[in-house]
């Protein structure tokens, strides 16, 4: 340790020698404080302080994401082989699947961290403060919510956009209004929709397979939600056809096409364990729940937000299920929540404390709005099968207003006491 300590002390001393190099102090300091908890002591106020700090808090969130990451790597490999028709059983070619998965996923993580931390360092030097810990989590979240076949340059651009516009313009970690990782995803979703949705992005290397003709027959590469949204569109076409009196045969044909698409959606168990195509880390509800259980155990994530988010999603899914009318609505509500990024969003996105409501009561409303809107957008608007992302972003935007209402109630209570006294 002494040896390491000397390296940092020498580095600090070297930087302090000239005014020109002094501004790079935050760089060395950031690495230093990562390796050594600094020797700062309390000067004012309480003389002792809790052992917890932001670094440990953030690191624990990263630990919680590891199940999602590992499963995501395996899953990317599995569907790569599946598209080639070589997947076999889930455990066949296990190491090759991991290998090819890592080949595709690790570069996304590397780009996300390298670019994001690069931007953070620039801001740290410019503003003369230490690099703050927020991006440690965002840098891992971004790869987990990207399609595996996304071009790396897009990851880089989205990360820059998210860190600069989503966070640093507001003042850095702790000051942002909307979730940084979702900002990156939303940016790509609207700027490069063809790389973020559709059939050609969810499986590693699927574009090449389609040009080479190596893609196995009958495999479209769409997500379950994509299939279900397609089925819903067919039913909508059928309704239009019916209105225009195109004849029973046409209507029935369209509906049959829709039903056929809907059957491609995976089963409840497959979607729970995560054996479906989708963004890298989002598919496995089980892995997300493992992480969620860990975060609740160490008290970092809020159960209030998680529970209300789930209930919000369930209530809308249940409502539309009761309405019925097309294969998408008729998916069992629990199964509906297992598809796509809902569970991942519940554990890692909606719970981001900076962008969530800060008051206890507010958290219930905030989570419910996020879950309900997410599922509503997903199911009601077939153009956005990944409505959860938008639902959470809208909830982020609502959070300050929710807090304001809750705090105003507290203030009113105090004012009332004054009048009755």
């Amino acid at each position: 340790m002494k040896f390491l300590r000397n390296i940092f002390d020498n580095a600090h001393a070297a930087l302090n020698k000239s005014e020109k190099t002094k501004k790079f102090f935050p760089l060395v300091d950031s690495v230093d404080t990562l390796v050594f908890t600094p020797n700062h002591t309390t000067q004012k106020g309480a003389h002792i302080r809790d052992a917890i700090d932001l670094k440990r808090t953030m690191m624990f969130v990263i630990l919680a994401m590891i199940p999602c990451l590992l499963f995501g790597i395996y899953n990317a490999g599995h569907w790569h082989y599946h598209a080639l028709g070589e997947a076999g059983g889930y455990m066949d070619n296990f190491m090759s699947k991991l290998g090819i998965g890592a080949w595709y996923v690790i570069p996304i993580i590397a780009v996300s961290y390298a670019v994001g931390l690069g931007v953070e360092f620039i801001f740290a030097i410019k503003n003369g403060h230490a690099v703050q810990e927020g991006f440690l989590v965002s840098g891992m979240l971004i790869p987990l919510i990207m399609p595996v076949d996304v071009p790396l340059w897009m990851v880089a651009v989205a990360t820059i956009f998210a860190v600069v516009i989503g966070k640093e313009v507001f003042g850095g970690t702790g000051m942002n209004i909307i979730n940084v990782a979702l900002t990156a995803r939303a940016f790509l979703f609207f700027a490069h929709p063809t790389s973020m949705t559709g059939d050609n992005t969810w499986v590693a290397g699927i574009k090449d397979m389609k040009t080479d003709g190596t893609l196995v027959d009958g495999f479209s590469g769409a997500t379950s939600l994509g299939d279900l949204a397609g089925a819903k569109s067919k039913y909508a076409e059928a309704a239009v056809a019916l209105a225009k009196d195109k004849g029973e045969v046409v209507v029935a044909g369209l509906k049959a096409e829709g039903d056929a698409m809907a059957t491609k959606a995976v089963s409840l168990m497959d979607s729970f364990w995560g054996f479906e195509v989708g963004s890298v880390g989002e598919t496995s509800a089980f892995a997300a729940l493992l992480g969620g259980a860990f975060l609740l155990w160490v008290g970092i994530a809020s159960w209030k937000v998680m529970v209300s988010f789930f209930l919000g999603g369930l209530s809308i899914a249940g409502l539309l299920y009761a309405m019925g009318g097309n294969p998408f609505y008729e998916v069992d509500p629990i199964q509906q929540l297992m598809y796509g990024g809902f569970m991942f969003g519940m554990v890692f996105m909606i719970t981001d404390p900076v962008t969530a409501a800060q008051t206890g009561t507010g958290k219930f409303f905030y989570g419910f709005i996020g879950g309900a809107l997410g599922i509503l957008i997903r199911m009601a608007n077939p153009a956005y099968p990944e409505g959860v992302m938008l639902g959470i972003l809208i909830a982020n935007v609502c959070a300050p207003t929710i807090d304001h209402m809750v705090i105003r109630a507290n203030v009113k209570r105090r004012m009332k006491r004054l009048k009755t006294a």
Partner: protein
Amino acid sequence: MSKSIKIRKGLDVNLIGEADKVIVDAQRSQFYAIKPADFHNTVPKMVVKVGEKVKAGAPVFKDKYNMDINFVSPVSGTVSDIVRGEKRRILSVLIEADASDEYQTNEIANIGGLDAAGAKSFLLNAGLWPFIKMRPLDVIAKPEDTPKAIFISGFDSHPLAPDYDFTLHGKGKEFQAGIDLLSKLTEGAVNLTTRSSNPDDTFKSATGCQKHSISGPHPSGNVGVQIHHISPINKGEVVWVVNAQDVAIIGSTALTGKYVPTRLVALTGETAKNRKYYRTLIGSTIKNIAGNNIEGDNNRIISGNVLTGEKVEMDDYLGYYHSQITVIPEGNEYKFFLTKGWLGLGFGRFSASHAYPSWMSKSKKFNVDTNLNGEERAYVVTEQYEKVFPFDIFPVQLVKAAITNDIDNMEKLGIYEVAPEDFALCELICTSKVQSQEHIRNGLDLIQKECM
């Protein structure tokens, strides 16, 4: 109406180093000090000069903006120095003690026959007034106010705090006289709070006051918390508070006419030796109590407790309101992140957070040094303060209003009900290491300047 109150939110900080319940007489100090800084926002106006003789109980300085308030000498002796700091601000007045005390006696009050004005003038003349503090603001009470109630907390729930049941044992007569005198000052009640489990006879036999029993973790002993649950303060209202031990000093002065500000000082903390209760006077040197009773040479000496106390050196003097000295190791060393640092397993490290395993052993006592354990950051984690803040107040929002000097929001969010000490636990457990006590104090100062 007597109430029984259970505080649910809070945190008992179990540290190693409680004082044994043994009383030892501390050596008489050569010098005693009265420090204006102990009386927040008080500007002293000297009434003695260097070299002048003073008796015990004779005024040394007055409050410049309220010349009725006297600050008196704890011993008889010679004013040996007036220590000044920047801008000639008076830091402390040193009195070289005589071998034995001569007293400036104050007319012995027939307590029963006094009216409010009489009681006030006795307390002011005898130099007892500084013991009375007011909420809001947590400063010395203004004699011209009439408080809606007076609160006396019968226990201290701070870490390693002295046990009032022990220090006030057998002081029933003085304590009762103090209560009788204080009850003249308010049209409301004198409220005495005790821990629910078997308080000392001094408290049990006290009469002429509303008694409340309080249970629950720290900060249940903070008088601000008790006021909030018994008779919350609204804008424009004033409550006076007196420490239970000071009530006994007030009482004994009233009974004998002599000002003998005895303090039983608990010497506590992991690196303190001979941890006992030391009998001394207000203004004594730290050296006389902790002098030979410290292990190691890298320690923090605190006048008061670890949450709200003041950092002192051996040559400094005991704080006016303090009856505790805590000695803990300094934490001025680097900690490698995987072993002792931020990513270690952390068995045995104190944390209220569940991210360290120590929360599972609730009765364990911890040794904690003064390391900040991290760096100051913007608020990230939410609903953390609320767990240790037993007020119907949003603590983070109030701190933010104080940081931004937002008087309007501070008033709305409840600044009149809190004192910095109520935020000590928030500060302790804060992931972002925000100095909330200081922010609240600054907020209160602004309120005092603009609104009071």
